């Protein structure tokens, strides 16, 4: 009786019951608790961003004329800003903008960067040399200066900011992915595939790309943190999302002059930015440690 019970229990626990990905996630959580916590924070952020209109207690752009710079409490859990808008609602809506800009910018950046990295890594030769020179030239500018210049050149507006940040990310990504491609390229199974006459497209898609996905995801995650800070910085300088968009960086900038008697208006947006960026950085770090510690470069 006992034995069959045990068998029944063991059968229930058998790994055939749980899908592979769930098991991996739970294993990740056990190995890297900090990363797991970061992951949860990010999920909350995404949740807030998606359901922003429902979650925000007030309309983020609604002006409460007589209640400017009210301290946190009651109707306005985080107070109101200089114009009379609810800070909490603006922070919740700001999550949407920050996340959206971050995702698109990083998407563009890692997408193109990975493409360039894989292509130059695989083909090598003259194209590689020329394109790498081009990337070197892009990297000759400090990131913020490049982003500033692009925004200045393209004009201010969300799309332009996304493109600007994306372009800033491309060279760094291409360099890392190129390295990864080079190391994959020298593997024997690639040689075998080539000997079997597989087309280049097939090799790249079926063999190189899946083995390069891990660095791409790590870079993308950490890049999201950087993108959010860059977007906040641009908004702070007045070159990011145009008003009245509730951008976290913009909120800090426009309310700075009142901060000595209304510290909450600059405090909370900063906390929001820090939490989001920390979440992405920690998650990216944890992923990198688990997948490929070799990526631990100069960070």
């Amino acid at each position, binding site marked *: 009786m006992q034995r069959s019970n045990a068998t029944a229990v063991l059968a229930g626990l058998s790994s055939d019951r749980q899908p592979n990905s769930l098991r991996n996630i739970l294993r990740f959580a056990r190995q890297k608790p900090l990363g797991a916590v970061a992951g949860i924070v990010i999920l909350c952020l995404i949740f807030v961003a998606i359901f922003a209109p429902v979650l925000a207690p007030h309309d983020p752009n609604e002006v409460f004329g007589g209640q400017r710079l009210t301290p946190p409490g009651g109707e306005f859990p985080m107070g109101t800003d200089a114009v009379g808008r609810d800070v909490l609602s603006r922070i919740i809506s700001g999550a949407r903008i920050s996340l959206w800009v971050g995702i698109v910018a990083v998407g563009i950046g890692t997408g193109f960067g990975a493409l360039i990295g894989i292509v130059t890594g695989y083909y090598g030769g003259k194209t590689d040399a020329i394109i790498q*020179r081009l990337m070197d030239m892009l990297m*000759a*500018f400090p990131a913020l200066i490049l982003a*500033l*210049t692009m925004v200045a050149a393209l004009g201010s507006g969300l799309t332009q900011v996304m493109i600007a940040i994306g372009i800033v990310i491309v060279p760094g990504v291409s360099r890392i992915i190129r390295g990864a491609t080079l190391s994959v390229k020298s593997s024997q199974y690639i040689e075998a595939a080539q000997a079997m006459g597989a087309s280049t497209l097939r090799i790249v898609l079926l063999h190189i790309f899946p083995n390069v996905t891990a660095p791409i995801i790590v870079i993308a995650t950490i890049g999201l943190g950087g993108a959010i800070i860059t977007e906040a910085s641009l908004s702070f300088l007045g070159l990011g999302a145009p008003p009245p968009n509730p951008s976290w960086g913009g909120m800090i900038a426009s309310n700075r002059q009142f901060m000595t008697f209304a510290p909450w208006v*600059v*405090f909370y947006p900063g906390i929001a930015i820090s939490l989001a*960026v920390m979440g992405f950085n920690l998650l990216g770090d944890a992923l990198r440690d688990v997948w490929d510690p070799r990526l631990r470069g100069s960070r």
Partner: protein
Amino acid sequence: MLFPVLLGVSFMVFVLLRLLPGDVVTIMLGETGNLSPEQADALRTELGLNKPFVVQYAEWVWGILRGDWGVSAFSRQPVLYEMLRRLPVSAELTLLSMLVSLSFAIPIGVIAAVRQDTPIDYVMRIMSVFGLSLPGFWVATMLLLFLAMQFQWVPPLRYVPFIDNPWMNIQSFVLPSFAIGISASASIMRMTRATLLEVMRQDYVRTAWAKGLTERAVIIRHALKNALIPVVTIMGNQVGFLLGGSVIMEQIFTLPGLGRLTLESIYQRDYPQLQGNILFVATVFVTVNLIVDISYAWLDPRIRYR
């Protein structure tokens, strides 16, 4: 090797800025009142905005090589003059920030490596995550807020050179240096810890322990010197970045540095100044990195004695 990159950079800068909507003349019209269309055109011709693109580029590069970087369309001063005037400020900020950053990062990084997995190590890792994640402009703003509210103190609003009034000068720089230094120290801390850990596993360190040297001697005299080599690379990177690029800190603390100059020339649509700035900043960045690369080869004895 340097030259083609810089040439490409100059071309990139030039092209990028030709995409700017509106030109200097339109902005100036807004500032100084109305200019008749003829006067506006005359201004354009004077600034050379009418010539074909390639000619403008060629003239500009030729001027650069001869030391004439153009004239600011806004202030009517030579571009190079404006930049050199601001350079000492950025240089001082960079120097002080790196001082703060290093005196913070290296001791803590070393301790974290030597006492790995103890509470100090975790504290260091948390600090470095904070340093990397907290937005610099927010940290600076919070510092200003704290000092203003607790001690009723704000840094002086006007910049005075060190020679004129050292005490006031330091007061202007102390907050931004700290804010920058703390962010910068994050990556240096991590790198120091990582490389020191690696170095400590080497055989020659084991020999040093076996010889009976004190912990201090082993770490400082033997392990640290080699561990710091990659750190120098990061430092160089940061110096190059800070010299031209601490736009935000200079803006917040109203320091007339290179970063602020770039920002202002963007606001004012000052083509010539902006071009010169960005080229200058990029050149500094590339040159500093080059120096670091070369010194890396020199610092590593294995390469030096080959």
